[in-house]
């Protein structure tokens, strides 16, 4: 799993300046993991992007009072939608992996039932991938990346002004 970047914080710096810096870093981490995330042969990609989306969502909520209200609301909504779509793909990935590990440790008579469940989970994984593809397209269309940076700029301007 990709480790989140350490961000230096100063307890005496203004809350809004920290908000701008932290959100920029977490936003970059999210988009750095977007490449080949739809590839089901490497499930770590979607895991890394999902973790990055959770961290980004968390910092948006931690620093909420520092951002322009209207912009914050729509950005948070879009980050949540992306995180949910990543979850739709990730949940069956994890379940399939667990079932494959379980199957290795059980008697042959048990395997047909687990195979049937894995087949069902593969269908869910495929639907999850379609959901994720649509969500990624939506992220591009609404230019979430730029809007996150604009949100950070808004927090910074609060102090500069």
């Amino acid at each position, binding site marked *: 799993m990709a480790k989140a970047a350490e961000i230096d914080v100063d307890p005496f710096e203004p*809350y809004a300046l920290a908000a701008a810096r932290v959100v920029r870093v977490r936003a970059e981490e999210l988009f750095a993991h977007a490449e080949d995330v739809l590839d089901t042969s490497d499930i770590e990609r979607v895991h890394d992007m999902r973790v990055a989306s*959770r961290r980004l969502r968390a910092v948006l909520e931690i620093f909420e009072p520092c951002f322009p209200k209207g912009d914050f609301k729509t950005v948070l909504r879009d980050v949540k939608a992306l995180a949910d779509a990543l979850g739709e793909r990730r949940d069956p990935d994890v379940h399939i992996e667990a079932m494959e590990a379980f199957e290795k440790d059980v008697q042959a008579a048990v395997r047909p039932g687990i195979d049937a469940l894995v087949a069902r989970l593969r269908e869910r994984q495929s639907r999850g991938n379609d959901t994720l593809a649509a969500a990624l397209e939506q992220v591009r269309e609404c230019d979430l990346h730029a809007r996150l940076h604009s949100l950070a700029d808004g927090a910074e301007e609060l102090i500069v002004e």
Partner: protein
Amino acid sequence: MKARRVKGLDPEAPLGDNAERIVRVRLDELTSFMPKAADSGEIVALHDMRIAAKRLRYVLEVTGDCFGPYAAGAVKMVKDLQDLLGEIHDCDVQLPEVSAFLEELVAEDVEAAGATPKGLAKAPNRRTYAGLVALHVHLRARRRALFEQFLELWLDFERKGFAARLAFALSERSQSPET
């Protein structure tokens, strides 16, 4: 679970003071689930406690360096708690899914089997039952073991004075204003 609102946050005030307010609320949120979550049947309380642990962990990951040294170590403790509660939650999600899938396959077989025992040979899913029942048993046993671990971990938190020590660390600052 909706996060409790944190009052008195000021964008122009120091990060440490704002972060202290947030962490205090998130810590209180986490501890408020005990003793209710000590009942293994309280699936919702356990799930909400996991969410509370996640929120506390994330705010400490970002702002923990503002506070006294105990806060940095607390991140790892909260992560361990969140991970354990996450594994319990996975069992709570998978158990009804496995039961529902088995019921679906059995229902299909009821249609195909007819009224005599010999008809069972025509049931298309007859070889899947053993695996799904075995999985159900495994998930219940695993869930029970994880829940025992959770109780032990929480007891360890209490023995170590986790909440009080973290609360104290929040009143400290990792550096002085002039440095």
